[in-house]
């Protein structure tokens, strides 16, 4: 690259005498706007949050003083945090497995050039762009105990009793929210899986067919191993997004009934809005960030994910 760089600045330098790092030949001016924005509104708030976790705030007197261990001790003794962590992990794992399996199956089903399947693929993408808050509303309407279409279908099938509305019952509320996530994000998996299936080489499959391998054998011995990278990538992206779930919980159950659907981010939000204990809200948020950071890095190392 340097060979080509040298001719240009000399011509221009005759009129414009800016230091080199301010000219278009240097990466600084190109990167500055984006990096500056991320530093000011991304990195600085994180450091600020981290600082806040070391502040002890008395909610009654609103007095604050430096006490590094206070919030963290409180966090580790707070059973609600561990409940929330458990809910978040359950939510993440159940949703990711459902989305992965469904996504793969639907992708295999739609992966054909037959007439009409292009349209079906396009239509299946629509849930992806519904604002999550609106998605929550859609399902809230359908789950409603007295006039919800899903609830009524379940009453008719005898699966659900009228005395135990889906979202107001501790044992079903989390699953009901997970189903919303599955509805909205399975198309994301389908998209990625379809891209992976499309990119597979044809030869190994033809050879396997000649050797008399069944479709199931082909899938487990060829398709799955060849798509492992793309699957790992999809799981990573979706997994992180699932772990920081907020919208559906906030809109649909507001962590209830009780704290049955309270995820870590929802708990942090509750602390923020209801008790205004900003340092403790920050501590929960930073704790969430740390868990994501560690889990994601372990995942990247183990499955060798590359962007």
């Amino acid at each position: 690259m340097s060979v080509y760089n040298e001719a240009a600045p000399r011509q221009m330098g005759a009129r414009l005498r800016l230091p080199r790092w301010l000219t278009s030949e240097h990466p600084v001016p190109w990167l500055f706007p984006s990096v500056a924005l991320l530093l000011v509104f991304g990195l600085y708030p994180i450091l600020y949050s981290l600082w806040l976790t070391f502040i002890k705030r008395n909610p009654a007197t609103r007095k604050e003083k430096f006490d590094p261990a206070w919030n963290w001790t409180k966090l580790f003794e707070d059973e609600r945090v561990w409940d929330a962590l458990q809910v978040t992990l359950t939510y993440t794992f159940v949703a990711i497995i459902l989305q992965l399996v469904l996504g793969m199956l639907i992708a295999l089903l739609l992966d054909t050039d037959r007439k009409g399947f292009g349209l079906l693929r396009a239509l299946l993408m629509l849930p992806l762009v519904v604002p999550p808050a609106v998605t929550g509303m859609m399902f809230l309407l359908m789950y409603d105990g007295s006039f919800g279409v899903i609830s009524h279908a379940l009453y008719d099938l005898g699966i659900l009793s009228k005395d135990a509305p889906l979202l107001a019952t501790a044992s079903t509320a989390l699953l009901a929210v997970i189903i919303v996530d599955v509805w909205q994000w399975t198309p994301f998996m389908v998209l990625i899986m379809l891209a992976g299936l499309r990119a597979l080489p044809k030869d190994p499959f033809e050879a396997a067919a000649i050797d008399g391998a069944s479709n199931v054998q082909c899938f487990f011995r060829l398709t799955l191993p060849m798509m492992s990278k793309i699957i790992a990538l999809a799981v990573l992206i979706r997994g992180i997004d699932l772990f920081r779930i907020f919208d559906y919980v906030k809109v649909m159950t507001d962590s209830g009934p009780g704290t049955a659907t309270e995820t870590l981010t929802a708990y942090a939000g509750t602390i923020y809005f209801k008790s205004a204990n900003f340092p403790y809200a920050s501590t929960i948020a930073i704790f969430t960030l740390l868990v994501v950071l560690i889990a994601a890095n372990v995942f990247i190392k183990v499955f060798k994910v590359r962007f």
Partner: protein
Amino acid sequence: MEQSRLAITARYIVAIFIVVIFLFPIFWFGLTSLKPISAVFNKDGVVWFDFVPTFENYRVTLLGQSAIDVNLNTRSDFGTSGGNSYDGRGSILSSIIVAVGSTLLSVTMGLFAAYGLSRMSFRGSQGVLNWILSQRFLPPIAIIVPLVFIFHDLGIRDTHMGLIIAHTLINIPIAVLLLKSFIDDIPIDIDHAAMIDGATRWQVFWKVVLPMSKGGLAATAVLCFIFSWTEFLLSLFLTNSIRTIPVKITTFVTSTGSEWGYISALGTSAIVPSFIFILLVQNHLVRGLTMGAVKD
């Protein structure tokens, strides 16, 4: 492998069945928006098609007509005399201002960074790239408390400008990485050829790379628009009076009951632009959602 007629038919039936299931919630929402109140809140069971369609929900949410003028039978026909709290016009305007503003900002800033990262090799470039990528996965809740303070101090809390900046913050990583993947697709030899002819970097960018990455630029812009249009958490925390549609719609759920007619009308109106936009970029959607990691 030749498939039997039966297998092909079965595949069509299953595929259509699955797509219908996935579209049903959207259909149901749209249908509800056309129902009169008596058909939404029916204690005897679910009303499917046995109702007279009405636009009264849209007249209230999109035209701002008073709920009382539209229909005296509205459930909460008291307490709304001081104005129509179900008027969605302000939130639609806010959503458009914020989405357009943050799209323009993210795409412009992102394009410069993408060019720099794609075309210049410098020490730490991979580090910068990874750091920008990691910003995409930052839980917004981890920065929201300080962000509220900072925005308050800067006087941009509860303003369109503030929300534009916040949405740009979450869109920048996506814009940079996606645009970089599009610029990476343009052969670098073209840059070199232009530079041998005496072009500066800026000229190469402006006259060669920019025209050639128009398609990618459009796709990125559309995706940024959608992400901003659908964003909820930051908008919820950073605004009080300025409400984007996703936040506004949650205020229709009240302790006295949810106004499902208005919720579904405003919700359906919010979905339509998303659908139009996604159909425009469906070819680049995978790449967009994986930030360029999976090519289409």
